[in-house]
């Protein structure tokens, strides 16, 4: 059932004002200097998203690379035979990326690239992609991932997506649940509502989003297929229906339901419809998060008097408190390797994104702002995206998990909140 005020749409041409722009605010001294030469165009080619621009922006926002300024790229080799390594060593580049883009007779594009080691004067990677125009940026992100992997040893997370909620004020107040590339491009609205939308959560296979919608004037949980737009009303009990979290195998949703008198963690089986209650306490229990092995659920509880992070076996059992410093710890998210929990913490300096280490049971603040919320891990565990305020405007930002680099994604209009970083794409 769709209320007249709601649109479920996959808009193919996103509004221009929704594009996010990226500013890198702090960099890392250990960043790898890399030269990314604009890809040579073979034949007449319609100007689309230039791959070198996309790759440069990707590598820069990771904080692990320092791309050479475009003006310094006097030499623009398009073929490995034209590369003079000595010149690049003089420019202090450690790596060099060259490539070509050609339009094929069927309208698709062929992109070739090579990643070269400037000191050893040898190729580290090379690949060819054939894609339709609409996927040029995606191919460039995959090249960025390959470069990241080769030079850092860690998988890149550039070919990923983010979901977030955008609030438009005019002509009337609207809430938009949007999915975009992780650099903010190509936003698509998957739900539009005059009432608030909260807590988007990606299914592990990346095909569905669960979220909380107030379209019926109170909180309810939906699960929506991103490709078909079909959605299922998962929870509409009395009271709060909130904080949906997918199990790692995608078959269950943990959630916070207050139907029994106060918010408690429940697990809803999507196949059978079974509902099992996990916590039993008169305090607030909310914001469940699954460990990557599916065995444990971390959650927020104020049973001690202030909100703190607890853990409980997903199969049921005793809740155990994890955080003991600060008067506010909430919004837990496990890292992909399960070693850390990102959270919102107040250690006396305002609400900041922090990282709880399971190994030494301590919390490290990662940001210096005071209004942070909704931390979400990149699927390689290297960065955390979160919602914050810059100059009283609600924006998304990302910080490396070592806290050293940060960038801000600035929506050109409207306020943005509730980011959720997708898992790795499984569809090609």
């Amino acid at each position, binding site marked *: 059932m769709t209320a007249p005020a709601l649109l479920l749409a996959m808009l193919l041409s996103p509004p221009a004002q929704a594009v996010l722009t990226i500013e890198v605010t702090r960099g890392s001294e250990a960043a790898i200097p890399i030269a990314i030469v604009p890809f040579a165009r073979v034949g007449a080619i319609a100007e689309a998203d230039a791959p070198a621009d996309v790759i440069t922006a990707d590598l820069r926002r990771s904080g692990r690379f320092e791309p050479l300024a475009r003006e310094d790229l006097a030499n623009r080799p398009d073929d490995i035979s034209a590369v003079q390594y000595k010149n690049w060593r003089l420019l202090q580049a450690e790596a060099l990326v060259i490539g070509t883009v050609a339009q094929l007779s069927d309208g698709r594009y062929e992109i070739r690239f090579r990643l070269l080691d400037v000191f050893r004067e040898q190729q580290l990677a090379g690949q060819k992609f054939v894609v339709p125009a609409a996927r040029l940026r995606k191919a460039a992100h995959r090249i960025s991932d390959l470069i990241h992997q080769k030079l850092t040893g860690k998988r890149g997370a550039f070919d990923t997506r983010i979901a977030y909620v955008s609030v438009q004020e005019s002509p009337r107040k609207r809430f938009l649940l949007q999915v975009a590339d992780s650099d903010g491009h190509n936003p698509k609205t998957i739900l539009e509502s005059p009432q*608030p939308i909260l807590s988007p959560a990606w299914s592990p296979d990346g095909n569905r989003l669960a979220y909380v919608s107030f379209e019926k004037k*109170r909180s309810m949980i939906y699960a929506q297929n991103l490709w078909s737009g079909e959605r299922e009303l998962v929870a509409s009990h009395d009271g709060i229906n909130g904080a949906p979290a997918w199990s790692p195998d995608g078959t269950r949703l943990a959630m*916070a339901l*207050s139907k029994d008198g106060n918010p408690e963690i429940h697990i809803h089986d999507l196949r059978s419809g079974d509902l099992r209650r996990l916590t039993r306490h008169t305090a607030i229990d909310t914001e469940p998060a699954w460990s990557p092995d599916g065995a444990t659920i971390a959650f*927020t509880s104020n049973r001690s008097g202030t*909100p703190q992070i607890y853990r409980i076996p997903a199969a049921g059992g005793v809740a155990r408190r994890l955080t003991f410093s600060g008067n506010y710890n909430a919004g837990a998210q496990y890292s992909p390797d399960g070693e850390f929990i990102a959270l919102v913490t107040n250690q006396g300096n305002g609400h900041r994104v922090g990282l709880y280490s399971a190994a030494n049971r301590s919390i490290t603040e990662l940001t210096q702002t005071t209004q942070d919320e909704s931390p979400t891990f990149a699927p390689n565990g290297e960065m955390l995206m979160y919602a914050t305020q810059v100059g009283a405007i609600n924006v998304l930002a990302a910080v490396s998990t070592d806290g050293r680099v940060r960038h801000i994604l600035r929506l050109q209009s409207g306020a943005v909140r509730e980011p959720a970083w997708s898992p790795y794409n499984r569809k090609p």
Partner: protein
Amino acid sequence: MPTSSMRKSPPRRLSLRTLSLRKFLSCMLPSRTLPSRRLSSYALVLLLGGALAGCGGGGALAPAPEEVEVEINPVEGIAGDTDATATGLGDDSAAQTQGLDDASSADSGGGDALLAQRVVYFEYDSSALTAAGQAAVRAHARHLRTATGTQVVLEGHADERGTREYNLALAEDRAKSVADLMQAFGVESGRIQTVSYGEERPVALGHDEASWHLNRRVEILY
């Protein structure tokens, strides 16, 4: 302060039609008849059985007020008020309910002023009612006990700090605090509805305590 020149007038009884007061009230406020021994500013008292309309645009529409008797108790003693009393009667332009602002009126709980208060506020990360909040809730509960059948909706809210889901739960806890106290004062649970909007519906948009304070609230809607 009371003086020897005070004298007590007998209460007059008028029907609502004669007074035409409802025209001039943007919010119809329930109140109770004041005991005639109250000594404070002049107040026009209306008894509206079951006839309440929320001022804030929320809540269900109330049934039309039925014709009731109105007891007017002019309260003596304060210079200048006797003039107001005289002009108050039958003079539409001057007809306004004057709430009692005297917080020291402990016996009747402040009557109109407390019932006019449709919002109760809370401290950071707390769902405990303050003394002022308790007094307002008590006044509403007393009204509800006389206005049988009336439903009330309690909307819980939170300020913007911290996570949205925790704020959703905190705001519900606040609404439940008000509901629990109403029930303790004898209002049947079936007449009370609670809903939480967390931090999603702020009334103040600043990013400082002045705004946050206004957003940590429960709205009482009829």
